[in-house]
């Protein structure tokens, strides 16, 4: 049964990520904010891009290390899919019993490291600049998620995401979890890599950072990694931090979670459509404030645990 659920998770992550991204690009960014028609094929535009890229020629840089350039996108995408197996989308996660909060955090970290090493292996200064921006942001944004989940762990007395989920749904509303949820939602904007925090692949400043020397199918895989990671983060946020709609049937839970994810995506897409890009030092300051909020939530959780 878990194997079946695992396949559902992988297929869902691989297809919901690009679809939701295409949806926000068309109906929120183009039609609503930019008052333009948007892509003709509507929400399927991201798929069209990905499959076009899969057919294109694969370029490696002469100055870099070919093997690492080849492996990086593959490892990144597989780490994102493994992380998606740990998120209890339908109340239970395929790898839920075998892993916990810290394993999930570090699997996502593994994906980010793979991208960075793949980018550095190309040897282009823009790839270095872009990936170092990503790591600098990761250093500030990851503790926010960690502190919020710390609060959840303290209250639910267990590191397993499923236990935290069950406790939070049973408990209903609790102040530390609410503070944690707010902090994680703001952190989502950077984890999604959406404006105002798409600093790592800012096309105007560092010519789309880690993506600069990668082309063809490997670029498609790297984009797919970022899209799947977005879906995983949204899934985690909707399941653990939004405590409504846990019924007995897993299928119903899955649908409710997808609806919640859809709402979160459109909210983030809306912010992305009307925000300029902030500089890396401004982003660090913003997320330091969010870090303080998350810390407050965690302390409150420990005190009340």
């Amino acid at each position, binding site marked *: 049964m878990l194997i079946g659920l695992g396949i559902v998770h992988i297929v869902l992550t*691989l297809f919901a990520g690009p679809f939701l991204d295409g949806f926000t690009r068309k109906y929120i960014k183009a039609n609503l904010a930019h008052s333009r028609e948007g892509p003709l094929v509507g929400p399927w535009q991201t798929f069209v891009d990905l*499959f076009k890229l*899969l*057919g*294109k*020629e*694969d*370029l*490696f*840089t*002469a*100055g*870099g*290390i070919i*093997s690492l350039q080849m492996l990086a*996108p*593959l490892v990144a*995408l*597989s*780490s994102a*899919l*493994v992380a998606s197996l740990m998120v209890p989308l339908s109340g239970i996660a*395929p*790898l839920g*019993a*075998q*892993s*916990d909060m*810290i394993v999930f955090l*570090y*699997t996502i*970290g593994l994906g980010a490291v793979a991208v960075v*090493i793949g980018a*550095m*292996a190309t*040897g*282009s*200064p823009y790839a*270095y600049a872009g990936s170092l921006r990503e*790591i*600098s942001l990761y*250093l*500030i944004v990851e*503790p926010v998620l960690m502190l919020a989940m*710390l609060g959840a*762990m*303290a209250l639910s*007395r*267990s*590191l*397993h995401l499923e236990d935290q989920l069950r406790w939070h749904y049973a408990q209903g509303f609790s102040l530390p979890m609410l503070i944690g949820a707010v902090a994680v939602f703001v952190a989502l904007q950077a984890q999604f890599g959406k404006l105002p925090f798409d600093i790592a692949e800012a096309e105007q400043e560092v010519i789309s950072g880690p993506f600069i020397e990668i082309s*063809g*199918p490997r670029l498609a*895989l790297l984009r*797919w990694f970022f899209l799947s990671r977005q879906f995983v983060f949204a899934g985690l946020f909707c399941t653990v931090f939004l405590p409504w709609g846990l019924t007995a049937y897993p299928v119903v839970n899955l649908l409710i979670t997808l609806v919640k994810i859809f709402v979160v995506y459109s909210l983030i897409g809306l912010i992305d459509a009307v925000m300029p890009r902030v500089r890396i*030092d401004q982003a660090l300051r913003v997320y330091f404030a969010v870090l303080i909020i998350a810390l407050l939530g*965690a*302390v409150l959780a*420990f005190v009340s*645990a």
Partner: protein
Amino acid sequence: MENGLFWLARTEGQIGTGLMVLILASVLVPLFYRRRYYMGPIAFILTLIGSAFLISSGVSVFLQGPTSTFHLHPLPGLTTPLTIGVDYLSAVFLIFVPAVVTLVCLYSLSYIENYKEQNPARLYPFLILLPVAAALIVIAADLILFLIGWELLALITYFFIVYRKEKEVVRAGAGYLLVSQAAIVCLIGATLILYRFSETKNLTFEAVGQTIEQMGLVHPGWLHTALFLFLIGFGINAGIFPFHFWLRKAYPSAPSAAAGALAAVGPKVAVYALLRLYADWLPVSFFSTIWGQILALFGGLSLFVGAFIALLQTDAAKLVSCYITVQLGYIVLAIGAGVTFLPISPPIALVALTAGLFHTVNNALYKSLLFLNTGALFARAGETDLAKVGGLMRVMPLTGLTALTAAVAIAGLPPVNGFASKWMIFSDCLMAGRTLPLFALLGAIALFISALTLASFLKFFGSAFLGPLMPATAEKKDLPLPMQVPQALLAVACVLIGLAPAAFVLPLYQAVSFLLHKGYAPSPYVVLGDSLTAIRLNFGDGIVATWNPIPFLAAGAVTFLVSFGLYRLLNPSRRVSPVWHCGATVSPTIAKYHTHGFYQPFKDFVGFRVNRSHARSHNPSAYASEEPPVRPITQQSQPDRLYPSVIRWISRLYRTIRRTRNGSPPMVWMLLTVSVIVAIALYSALS
């Protein structure tokens, strides 16, 4: 004496022969100082034999159980006999220390060629004596032999550091000597206090345990001072927070191979001493809660300080040395948590102590591997400054791969061994934090610092092995075999431990629970779960945290196949093209991303403690009349000293002493020992 074979079967016999072989080797090897070519292999073979004996003794302890204490011939004038006793904890160290030192000896066979002007005869004997010193400390069952072992270790480290006869290296050696002798003095002081208050005037470990128990009731004040002196002594050798400053100068000046061996021995043996002191001797009482929390605090602070100083380093050797402090911070944090929770809840305590021990073993492996990689940098690029080195993965791919494994291990990413031990430490601290919030805070700091470690070692791997290849190292060939084999073995060891952590954690749990008296520790299978690979922590109310590498890797393999399938879906053609500099042609030397610029926004943002890397920009104009005022960016060679006043006071003292006695370092050392003897005389007169 029973016949040879039977003698060899028993652990004491194996240890005895092992030590004999090594001591003989250290005497024999210098005789070949004329013929450099033969000296290396002979030294290696003898070390191999000696270490084999020591390792077999360690393994036999685990098979046949710990040996009873064994009295050597007592020294004249001393009431306490010199006793030896090998239990599970010492067995753990007897296994991995000689193994790492042998690999380092194999590595230095061809690494020594880089130091043309020095004679290897000044390195091999001490490399061979290193396991002897460690074994001595680990098997000693009384304080005197224990201190002799520490003294031997300090001397060996000094001779490693001053191997290169350059001026600033000698000064670093003198500095280290001063610091290590101060540590020894503290240990001697603590022993004196124990000796004074023990009725039986006997310093064997059991007697020490009883004396401490008595002092706890009668003279708590003196017990605290003794424990404090012990803490300073072992803290200095471990290089944790308040005493970490000597590390950055001492280890980088030693040859990288020697530094790798030292990193696997010095601080790790200090961890053995801490475990022995706080878990074995100290009775489970409110003392352990106080001192446990102090230890945990020191661990947390050394995590924080070490990581931020390392963020500034641009030299590979300094960066790796800084991270000794950080990794020791993790271990001491775990031990502190364990000791604190001994009286409160045994499962959490024992899991914490096991986690600390497990991290010690893992750290010894990947830390020495990192030093060997730095050595490889020195061998091929002539220097370890990351700013001048680049793209070496194309010159030496295997070393690059091992460096990547080591970086992933120290950063604690899932499949490799660093993650297993860090995961245990985090989950234990966080769960402990529910009763004592201090540990939750320290756990959170530990999680954040592990992200910082990841960043720093991406800097190490990113600027040394990736990026454009520097022309100076372009046509160099790969490393010789003796240098590659040890790195490969260490990397494979790291990955193996990562894949089956439970198999290694159970014996360590047994070693730690043996320290406490019988019947105290819950059975390992309840606390750690019973499978061979998965660890399921259960602190009494259900399984709280799980880490099972096998399904993780299975899922990883499946998803890797899925992404590879996607990659080959429309079988794309492949082509190699030069790096794109927006249409301009830029030479690789100036296009290399300078190491000083790594994470510069983050460093500026966190600049409150670390003196900011201040970049004065000049505004050159296409028509500037005079040469623009470029102030070179303040090079971060001297990171901010946290205790500037203390250091200045010590060096002023050092200078005044030097002026009085025509300034040669041994003179200072001799003066110190005289002062200690005077202190002892005074003390015995008073009591």
